[in-house]
């Protein structure tokens, strides 16, 4: 199945290059979803279905939806809605669609084809992952929690809006 691996790797690289060269955040996000799906496909072709599913659920599912919500909340005007309509030309969505289609064909091929050769891969089950995460690596998980807290506190401080309620006579001084 090494051909499938290489195809999905190329798709991942192409999509990531498109992410960092787009001007509009939404266009970049479309390619980012494709990039995550391509990485998930890489895992699947290597015989790691659980990582592949996690990749889709965590990144493509949760994180991208969060991004899209934030971007949607930033643009609330009618003008920006019109502008967005202008941006949503076929040339915008056709690129990600083609890449996604390639990945879909790959997955169908992978699922339909009977296992021709015996793969030397031990399948890791969710149970094993959970047991090692909450067993020997429990401290790492707890520290991961602290890492998230650091990110949230830092982002909350940097992004905070300060409200200045000054009397209009005092406002000239500031």
């Amino acid at each position, binding site marked *: 199945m090494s051909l499938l691996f290489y195809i999905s790797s190329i798709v991942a690289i192409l999509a990531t290059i498109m992410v960092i060269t787009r001007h509009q955040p939404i266009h970049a996000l479309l390619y980012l979803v494709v990039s995550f799906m391509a990485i998930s496909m890489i895992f699947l072709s290597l015989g790691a279905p659980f990582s592949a599913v996690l990749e889709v659920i965590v990144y493509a599912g949760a994180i991208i939806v969060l991004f899209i919500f934030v971007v949607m909340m930033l643009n609330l005007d009618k003008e920006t809605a019109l502008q967005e309509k202008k941006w949503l030309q076929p040339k915008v969505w056709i690129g990600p669609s083609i890449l996604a289609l390639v990945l879909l064909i790959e997955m169908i091929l992978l699922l339909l084809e009977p296992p021709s050769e015996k793969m030397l891969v031990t399948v890791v089950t969710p149970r094993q992952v959970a047991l090692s995460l909450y067993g020997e690596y429990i401290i790492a998980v707890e520290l991961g929690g*602290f*890492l998230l807290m*650091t990110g949230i*506190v*830092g982002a909350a401080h*940097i992004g905070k809006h300060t409200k200045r309620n000054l009397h209009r006579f005092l406002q000239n001084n500031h």
Partner: protein
Amino acid sequence: MNELQLLALLPFIVLATASIVVILLIAFRQSHTVIQVVGFLMMCMVVFATWYVKDTLPQAIPPLFVVDGQGALFTGMIIFSVLAIGLFSYIYFEDREENPKEYYILLFLGTLGAAILTISQHFISLFIGLELLSVSLYALIAYLRNRNNAVEAGMKYLVLAALTSAFLLFGMALIYMETGNMEFAVIAKKITTTSPTLFIMGLGIMLVAIGFKLALVPFHLWAADVYQGAPSPVTAFIGTVSKIGVFAVLLRFAQTIQLQHYPLAISIFSAIAIASMITGNVLALRQQKLKRLLAYSSIAHFGYLLVAFMPGNSAGTEAAIFYLLAYSITLLSAFGVIILLSTGQGDAEDLSLYQGLIWKRPVVATVLSVALFSLAGIPLTAGFLAKFFVLAAGVQQHMWLPLIVLVVTSVIGLYYYLRIISTMFAAPLPTLASPKTLHPFFYISTYAALIIMTGLLTWLGVFPGIILQGIKTFLLLH
């Protein structure tokens, strides 16, 4: 995990609790003073906890951690640095525009990251500790978010730290590919050939991240801008806590895999050390801003430190720990002076501000002079003995080239340290006295901390025996 293992982790648990206590204090709308005092007490509790668990060490907590004497030593140094930085932060942030409360959460979380690094023996704990340190530093550097310098410095650090984290992960992946494990001890066992290509490549790529954090040449480009742009207490944090933590994990990794047996790795390290010593000292020569000058001097000092690290013998380890101890006390007292002289408008970085300081504020100027003497390595200060131990450790292994560069660049370094001191003795410029609005207690305690640190520097420089003995006893616990 059994009771003894939990007990060995007690200092780290207390440290992690400190940040949560600060969050709760903020939730109950306590004042800056309360948070400051409680934070100080929590750090004291960490020190007591480290002392309390000392007799149960060493304790392995497989697979991620090993709490041994060396880890306890580095953790102790980190906590003492944070005690001083926390004290300086009060007077610094009281006359700045930002609300300083979240600062303490980030400070303690960053400290937790550095402390985790000192006891890691696994790539996962190494990576999480390093990220905890970096993520809190992103926000700490840009804490004064309305000042352009700070935002620029934070952005620079964010981009470069994220990039080097990617390098670190890639290096780890290469080593994992060669050995099939991420635990330091198992990696050491799995390598059987004398020149494992993938392993050396992985090590080299990981060195990008380590070199970035320690600001070694050629990964030093961020140092001057970030040192200048960050608030002064945060700069002191980057210069001491973050570097102690990263150096501790580098030392443990090198000891476990016995780095000195790989000639290629050693030649990479000596090239980096030589480049750092030369570049740092040469760039500092014409520098007119004190914080930038200290950034370049820190590049040079970590070059010296690598000379002590390369032999891989016990003398080298002791010399490196003594060097780090002397360097952090010195740097903290220098930054304490900068913070005392800073005003709400900007930090005291221009050398012209220091002209005639000895006639205007003799105590502060004396503290800064002793710190600069120690950085330059003048006898009777800790810096001299630290450099002497480094030289002694290097001579044992006949590493002549790095040693000659060390001696020559130290002489070059004398020029710019003495230049600052001569500026302080020049005739003073007429300046306006800065108004003091804070309660005198905090000024008195800051002065007391500075005087204690200056005393420590001279004491270490004259009678290093007790400290060396202490370091040796702690190092035996492994």
